[in-house]
């Protein structure tokens, strides 16, 4: 046989092999895991989505892959819908569980996610991440946290902020800025106290020199009273915000700590 004819037979054979592979996969509805991994790693979002939409396979596994897709591209509500439809499969995948736990530890849907997986048998890494969530949900003074990444320090800050009562901060604001001292915002206290002192001195001065019913006195008094009463509501809101901030700060440090000791990959 001639050389060219052998080559053409080889090519035809290869083509037939490739065609049969592709058609068989479509017919059986198997998801090409390595192709999905490639799409995920290269962040080919559109192609990834199109592939998941087109592939014809069992509902359970397609929702499992969709859940992973939504998790990667941070579409939380869609992730939860897909997760609930493929819960059994998803909970068996330790990579996906770890990835999701690491993602949700600093997410607003943290509570929802950890409530979903709380009663399940979890892999070690997810279990460690869950510990941080539990520390937030039930503040515990006898905690045992690693000293690296200032975790203990941040948790103590959180505990301190958690013990503050916004109503007390509100009442302490009778003295301008004292409510801010109560929650540890010394810089806010200095600014508020100084500005309020200047405003009240200005009001008293104009009252003494011009009289009480003069426009400048009224304007000065308006400014003083506006800023003075804003201190009450400000201290109240700052106390609540401080709790959230210290909590998020602790969780961000926890996430950094987790990232430093474990490796995460979705596929």
């Amino acid at each position, binding site marked *: 046989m001639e050389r060219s004819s052998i080559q053409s037979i080889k090519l035809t054979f290869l083509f037939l092999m490739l065609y049969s592979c592709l058609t068989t996969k479509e017919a059986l509805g198997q998801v090409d895991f390595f192709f999905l991994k490639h799409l995920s790693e290269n962040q080919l979002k559109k192609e990834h989505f199109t592939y998941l939409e087109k592939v014809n396979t069992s509902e359970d596994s397609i929702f499992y892959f969709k859940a992973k897709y939504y998790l990667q591209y941070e579409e939380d509500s869609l992730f939860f819908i897909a997760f609930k439809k493929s819960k059994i499969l998803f909970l068996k995948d330790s990579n996906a569980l770890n990835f999701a736990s690491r993602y949700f530890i600093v997410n607003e849907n943290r509570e929802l996610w950890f409530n979903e997986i709380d009663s399940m048998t979890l892999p070690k890494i997810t279990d460690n991440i869950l510990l941080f969530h539990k520390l937030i949900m039930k503040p515990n003074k006898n905690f045992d946290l690693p000293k690296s990444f200032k975790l203990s320090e941040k948790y103590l800050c959180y505990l301190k902020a958690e013990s503050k009562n916004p109503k007390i901060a509100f009442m302490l604001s009778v003295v301008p800025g004292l409510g801010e001292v109560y929650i540890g*915002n*010394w*810089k*806010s206290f200095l*600014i*508020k106290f100084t*500005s309020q002192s200047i405003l009240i001195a200005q009001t008293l001065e104009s009252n003494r020199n011009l009289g009480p019913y003069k426009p400048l006195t009224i304007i000065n008094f308006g400014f003083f009273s*506006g*800023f003075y*009463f*804003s*201190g*009450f*509501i*400000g201290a109240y*809101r700052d106390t609540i915000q401080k709790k959230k*901030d*210290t909590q*998020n*700060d602790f969780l*961000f440090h926890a996430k950094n700590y987790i990232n430093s000791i474990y490796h995460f990959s979705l596929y």
Partner: protein
Amino acid sequence: MKLLTICSILFYISIGFVALSQDSTKTTLQKLVIDVTFTTNPNSEQKVRPLMNIQNNRLNPINFLAIGLMFFYQNVISEQISANCMYEISCSEYTKRNIQKYGLVKGTLIGLHQLSCCTSYIQSQYCEHRINSNGKIINPVN
């Protein structure tokens, strides 16, 4: 006189040709310099700030008046004094949104509280995650 007129016309035409030829022989470096010099700076563009989000508003006339005043401040005074707020949502915008959400009294007081703390000195008081990439303090309206 006719000759003078013709000469002047020819002179102006020649100037035009010279200018055109100069324009066509501009080096790439010259073009680059011109482009850099006359390109508009995105930071210097005036921000377009809407009056309010009408969907969520109950159209209380007093609130509407206060928001209108804020709108006037933002689009006329603030631009003139080159106001630069330390917060991600500027003090005026924050006040406006809070007035819309909580009403005139509470909204104004919340806005005044932010205004009284609006200095660079206070920035170190906040956690790292409350500071955005532009160095501004993140202040969600909640």
